C-alpha cells in the first residue's frame, strides 16, 4: 500500500475538515500515503461539457504527478476520482481523444497505477478487523445514515466502488465503529449539488427529500464522503428548515471525522466546529464526547 493523496480543490477550500481528518487518520493508522506534490484541479463536472480534451488533459496531469512519485493514487473527492479514472480509461485505449489529450499535455503519460477512494482502501485493504482493534471510543447507539451521493457509485463499471443501488462500504465502516446503521433508500439519490450555485431552489427540494428520508428512518446524523454533498446537506440545512417549516437538526459528518471519533482522536483535530449543524449536543448526549 503506497499511495499518493489527491485531495482535490474542495478539500483545500470548502472541505478543510475532510483534508485535515484524512491526514490525521493516515498518521494515526501509519499508512504509507502522502499528498501528491503536483496535483492539479480535475476540472470537476463543469469542464467536460466545455471541452473534453482539456478536461481529460487536466486529470492526466495529475496521473503524471503520481507517476513522478511512483505512487498509486488515493482520492477523497468522488468527482476527482471519477475524472482521474476516466482519464485512465482514455489512456488505456488508443483513440483520437487519447492522442489529442497527450498533445495538449505535451508529453507521453502512462496510466498503470491503481486509483482508489480512501474509504475503499480502509474498508478492504486496511481491513475492518484491524479497524475494529483500533476503536477505543465506540460510537454506541448513534444511529447513522450513510449517504454516498451519486458520484461515487456511478457509472459502476468505471467506479468499481460498490453496488450502485445499495452500497455498504461506509455502513460497514460505521458499524465496525460500533454505530447503529440505518438502512434507508436514498443512499445514492442525487442531492443536486451540481446545481447548488446556479439553481439553488432545485437543489433545496432534492436535499430536503434526502434529509427527511434519513430522519424518518431514524437517523440521528448523516455520514458522507463527498465534499459537495456535505456542503449541500449541511450548509443549506437551515434554509431548508425555514423553507419547509420542519426541524431537521441532522449533523452531517464526514466518515473520516466519525472514524476519528471512534479512534479517540482529539475533537479539535477533527474540526467538528466547522460544521454548520452543530454536532456537539448529539455527541455529548450519546456519551461519545
Amino acid at each position, binding site marked *: 500500500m503506497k499511495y499518493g493523496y489527491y485531495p482535490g480543490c474542495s478539500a483545500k477550500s470548502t472541505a478543510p475538515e475532510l483534508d485535515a481528518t484524512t491526514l490525521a487518520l493516515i498518521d494515526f493508522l501509519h499508512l504509507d500515503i502522502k499528498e501528491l506534490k503536483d496535483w*492539479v484541479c480535475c476540472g470537476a463536472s463543469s469542464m467536460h461539457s466545455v471541452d473534453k480534451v482539456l478536461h481529460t488533459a487536466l486529470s492526466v496531469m495529475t496521473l503524471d504527478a503520481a507517476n513522478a512519485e511512483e505512487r498509486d493514487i488515493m482520492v477523497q473527492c468522488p468527482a476527482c476520482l471519477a475524472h482521474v479514472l476516466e482519464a485512465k480509461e482514455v489512456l488505456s485505449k488508443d483513440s483520437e481523444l487519447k492522442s489529442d489529450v497527450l498533445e495538449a499535455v505535451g508529453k507521453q503519460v502512462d496510466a498503470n497505477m491503481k486509483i482508489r477512494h480512501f474509504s475503499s482502501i480502509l474498508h478492504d485493504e486496511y481491513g475492518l478487523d484491524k479497524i475494529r482493534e483500533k476503536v477505543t471510543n465506540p460510537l454506541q447507539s448513534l444511529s447513522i445514515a450513510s449517504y454516498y451521493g451519486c458520484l461515487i457509485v456511478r457509472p459502476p463499471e468505471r467506479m468499481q466502488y460498490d453496488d450502485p443501488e445499495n452500497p455498504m462500504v461506509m455502513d460497514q465502516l460505521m458499524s465496525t465503529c460500533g454505530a447503529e446503521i440505518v438502512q434507508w433508500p436514498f443512499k445514492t439519490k*442525487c442531492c443536486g449539488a451540481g446545481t447548488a450555485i446556479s439553481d439553488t431552489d432545485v437543489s433545496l427540494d432534492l436535499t430536503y427529500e434526502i434529509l427527511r428520508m434519513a430522519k424518518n428512518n431514524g437517523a440521528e446524523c448523516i455520514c458522507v464522503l463527498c465534499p459537495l454533498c456535505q456542503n449541500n446537506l449541511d450548509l443549506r440545512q437551515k434554509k431548508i428548515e425555514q423553507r419547509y417549516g420542519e426541524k431537521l437538526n441532522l449533523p452531517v459528518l464526514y466518515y473520516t471525522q466519525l472514524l476519528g471519533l471512534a479512534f479517540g482522536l482529539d475533537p479539535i483535530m477533527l474540526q467538528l466546529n466547522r460544521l454548520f449543524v452543530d454536532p456537539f449536543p448529539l455527541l455529548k448526549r450519546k456519551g461519545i464526547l
Partner: protein
Amino acid sequence: MLIKIGREVNLLAFSKKLEKETGTDVRKCYQCGKCTAGCPMNFEMDVSPSQVIRFCQLGMEEKVLNSRTIWYCIFCDTCSTRCPQGVDIKGVMDGLRRMAVARNIKPKSNVRFLEKAFQSIIYLFGRVYEPGMVGMYNLRSGNFLHDVGYFPLMLRKRKISLKPHFKRTREVRQVMKRAQKMKLRKAKELEEAK
C-alpha cells in the same frame, strides 16, 4: 407538433453523428421511460430524458440543442446506470451540451456562466478558488447577491480561504492554450472538409 419526414431527411444521420461524439447509439433505446422515471432534474426540464433520446432518434437536432434539458442535467448518471438497453443518456446530454456550446447556442440555465467562471479561475490559479469563482459567476450571471449570504458564514467556519492557492499555473495555462489551439485547428479542418 408536426414532424415532417421526407426523402431528403436522413433520420439516421444525427444518430450516427451523436454516436461518434458520445460513443452511444441512441437507436438502442426502446422508449421504456426508466431514465425519465428516475431523473432528479426532470421537473426542471422541458423535454424529459427519454424524450430527448426519442428526438435524437428522429434526427431533431435543433429541438434538443435548444432544450432546457441539456442545461439542467446534472450528470448524476442515475439514468445510464439503470437503462435496460445500455444507452448512456448522461453521455448524450453531455455531448449535446458540447454541441450547443460549439454552436454558441444560448444556454437555458445559469450553469454555463458557472462553467465559464470555473474555466477562468483554473486558468488564473491552476486550482479552484471559490470566492473568486462565485464572484465571477455573480458578475457574469448578473445575480450579484447570489450566495453572498453564505460568505460570512463560510468565512467564519474558515471554509473559504481568501488567499488563492497557486499551483503549476504556468503548465496548466500552457495545456489550456494548446487545447484551445487544437480546437480551433479542428474546427478549421472541418470547415475546409466541407
